[in-house]
C-alpha cells in the first residue's frame, strides 16, 4: 500500500477553515447534533479512514495546512517503522498502515515538530524544513550519519 492509495480518493482536507458557509447566530438549530459520518457508524473502529464515509461536519474534511511555517519531510530510506511518530503525533497526521509508516498528512499537520524530536534513527528520518522548501531538494540535502562522540 502506498500513500497515494490512502490519500488518493477521499475527502480529506477539502475545506479551508473559515471558508465554509455559516448561518447566523439566530438561525442555529438548538441542541444541534453534528454527525461525523453519512452512513451507519457502528463499525467505525474496524474501518480505516479511507474506507469511511465522512460527513461534511467531520473536521477530517477540513484543513489546517495554513497554520504551518515549517513542515516535516519524511525519508523512507532511513525509517525503521518504529511508529514513535505515529503514537506521539497530536494531529493524527502520521499515516501508518500494516505496521508501516507511509508518510505525512499535510492537510492536518500543524508543523509542531514533535515527530522529528521523537525519531530515534541516526540521522533522523523526519526533519523540519521551511514550508516553501521543495521536498526533493530536502531529501537531496539530508545530513550524513553522525558518528558517536568520542569520550
Amino acid at each position, binding site marked *: 500500500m502506498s500513500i497515494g492509495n490512502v490519500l488518493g480518493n477521499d475527502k480529506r482536507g477539502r475545506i479551508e477553515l473559515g471558508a465554509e458557509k*455559516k448561518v447566523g447566530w439566530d438561525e442555529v438549530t438548538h441542541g444541534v447534533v453534528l454527525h461525523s459520518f453519512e452512513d451507519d457508524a457502528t463499525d467505525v473502529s474496524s474501518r480505516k479512514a479511507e474506507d469511511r464515509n465522512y460527513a461534511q*461536519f467531520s473536521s477530517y474534511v*477540513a484543513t489546517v495546512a495554513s497554520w504551518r511555517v515549517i513542515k516535516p519531510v519524511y525519508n523512507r530510506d532511513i525509517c525503521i517503522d518504529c511508529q514513535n511518530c505515529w*503514537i506521539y503525533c*497530536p494531529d493524527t497526521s502520521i499515516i501508518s498502515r500494516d*505496521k508501516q509508516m507511509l508518510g505525512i498528512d499535510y*492537510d492536518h*499537520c500543524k508543523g509542531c515538530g514533535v515527530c522529528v524530536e521523537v525519531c530515534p534513527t541516526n540521522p533522523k528520518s523526519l526533519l523540519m524544513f521551511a514550508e516553501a522548501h521543495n521536498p526533493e531538494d530536502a531529501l537531496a540535502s539530508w545530513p550524513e550519519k553522525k558518528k558517536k562522540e568520542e569520550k
Partner: protein
Amino acid sequence: MAITSIKNLKEFSTANDRFEGAHLLCPGCAHSMIVRELMNCTDDNLVIATNTGCLEVSTAVYPYTSWDTSWIHIGFENAATAASGAEAMYKARKRKGTLKNPDAPVKFVAFGGDGSTYDIGFQWLSGAVERGHDFTYICLDNEVYANTGGQRSSSTPIGASSTTAPAGRVSYGKKENKKDMMAIMAANGAHYVAQVAPNKWKNMAQAFQKALATEGPCYINAISACTTEWKFDAKDTIHISDLATDSLVFPLYEIVGGHELNITYRPKNIIPVCDYLGAQGRFRHLFKPENEHVLVEWQKRVDANWERLQRREEARV
C-alpha cells in the same frame, strides 16, 4: 482489528484512529496525544462527555466535530454528571430491553481539564464517584486555566507564574501547593485511580484499558504539557513530559480499590527537579538569587512525596 492487548508499538499502530485531525488545539498540544491514545486503545463504543475547556472548544468548532464517536459537550462543571446520566439511562434501557443492540459493549468516559476537575467540577465529580456510576473520568492536567488565558487553578504548582498569580518584584508566583487529587479520589471511593503521562505511552494505554475494564468509577490524572502556558517550544512536549516523570515531579502510580498503591514507572536515572523547572518559562524567575529557597523547597517536597509513595506501596494499606 481488535486491539485487546498492546504488546508493542508496531502492533498498536494498526489501530484505526477515531480522533480526527484539523481540530484547533495548539501545535504540539499533549491533550490530543492523550485523547487519541484513549480512543485507539479500545474498540468498544465510547460515549464521551467533555466539559468546557481547551479540548472542547478546539474539537467542536462549528460546523465541525473531530470525534468519530458519541460525544456530549456540557458546561464547565458537569462532565462527570453528563457521563453518569448517560450511563444511568443506558442501564435503565438495557433493563427494559429497549436498546437496539444490547450486546454491544459501551464505555462511558468524561474528559475535563484541571480547572474543571480540581476546582469548578470538583463537587459534581465527587458526587458521581460516590454514586458509583460505571465510568472513567480523565483529567487533562495542564496545571492552569489554559483556555481562558492562563489563570491559576488549584492544580497550579507552587512558584509557577500565571496571569492571576504573576511573578514579579514582590511575589515568586503562586504560593500554594498543588492539590493531591489522586489521594482525594482514592479516598472518595474511585475503584481505580492512576496518574499517567503521554511520553510513557504503554503505561498510559494499560492504565486506560484497566480503567475501562474496571466496573465502577475510575479516575485518571493525565499530565498534559501545555506549550502556551508552560512556555516551551511546541516540539518539546514529549521532552518536557520526560523531564516531569524522570524528576518525579509527576510520579506515575495507580491506586486500586482505594488502598493498594502500585508505582508503575521507576525512572532509571532520577534527575534533579531544577532540570524540569528550568526547561519552562513559567518557572524562569525561580532561578534568580532571591528565589533560591523555593527551588530547595521544591526538591525537598518532591523527595518527600516519592518517599511517601514508596512507603505506601510497601505497606499495602
